[in-house]
């Protein structure tokens, strides 16, 4: 019931980050997530913003993280890998459902016409 009451609405950037890490699967960490978003959006992404979004998602229990092993090319620092939780997947589906239903209500915009 508490879960139902505490609905986690996703911001635009949070949704992009969550979708990117779902696409990446086991290889989702800061660099790959930001590159994935850059490739799709065509815009440079600030790694700090990606981490801020990931931290917010983790606070909402939508993603979990774990540290990998440190490597020399990263100055001896570990990668932080992220994965979506079941709740995160549910949230993405719910957001997609809402957006699709809203989209269907705008026939003038169908087919990519703005």
């Amino acid at each position, binding site marked *: 019931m508490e879960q139902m009451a505490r609905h986690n609405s996703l911001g635009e950037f949070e949704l992009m980050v969550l979708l990117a890490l779902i696409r990446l699967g086991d290889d989702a*960490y*800061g*660099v790959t997530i*930001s590159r994935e978003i850059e490739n799709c959006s065509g815009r*440079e992404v*600030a*790694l*700090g*913003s990606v*981490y*801020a979004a*990931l*931290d917010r998602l*983790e606070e909402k229990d939508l993603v*979990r*993280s*774990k*540290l990998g092993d*440190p*490597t*020399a*090319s*990263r*100055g001896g*620092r*570990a*990668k*932080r890998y992220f*994965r*979506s*939780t*079941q709740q*995160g*997947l549910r949230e993405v589906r719910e957001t997609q459902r809402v957006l699709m239903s809203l989209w269907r209500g705008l026939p003038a915009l169908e087919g990519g016409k703005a």
Partner: protein
Amino acid sequence: MNLRKPPVPATWLLTRLGIADGNAPLAGDLLEEFQSGRSVAWYYRQTFMAIATGMYRNAWVARRYLGAFSIGYAAQAGVAFILWRNSWPSVLHGIAFTTLAVVMVILLLGTLSRPLWRPRDTKHLGSDLPKLESFFEFSFFAVVAFGSYLMMYGLVALLWRQSLREWAYTESIWFLGFIVPDLIRPRSQPRRGRQSARGQA
């Protein structure tokens, strides 16, 4: 393996402002991207963005205390300004208050740039609580600094044979603005229902 060296000032900022330690994976990601061919300008941009994002997040975590601090300081400044305009030895008071204000702002910005908040991971962090110690160090400094300032204020009042009423009034605002937030600070307590990262989806 011959690795490129990132620009020293940016690295210094990352280390000095706590991102290299407080959010090591982010610092590692920046370095990895730089090693893979990103430009120096990119590294600087990302560094400043990381610092700005961290400061914003810290301010959000400490918003309650920042609010109390701002109200306390604004009230203090208002009262001091009125006293300054009316009856206090203006040069002495003006110099002292302005110096203290500048130092406090610099310290506040420095405090916010440090990692008040750290990400939850499973290997290094025993606690899920936000790391607010830096802010409380600052808060403690504020109490000591303003306490000293107000003692001087009271001394000047006695020497100039002025009424201490304004001084007492300022003291009470200082108390509400700085002591009370420290008294109601959150204590360590276990976070509800968090699992380790092993139980991932």
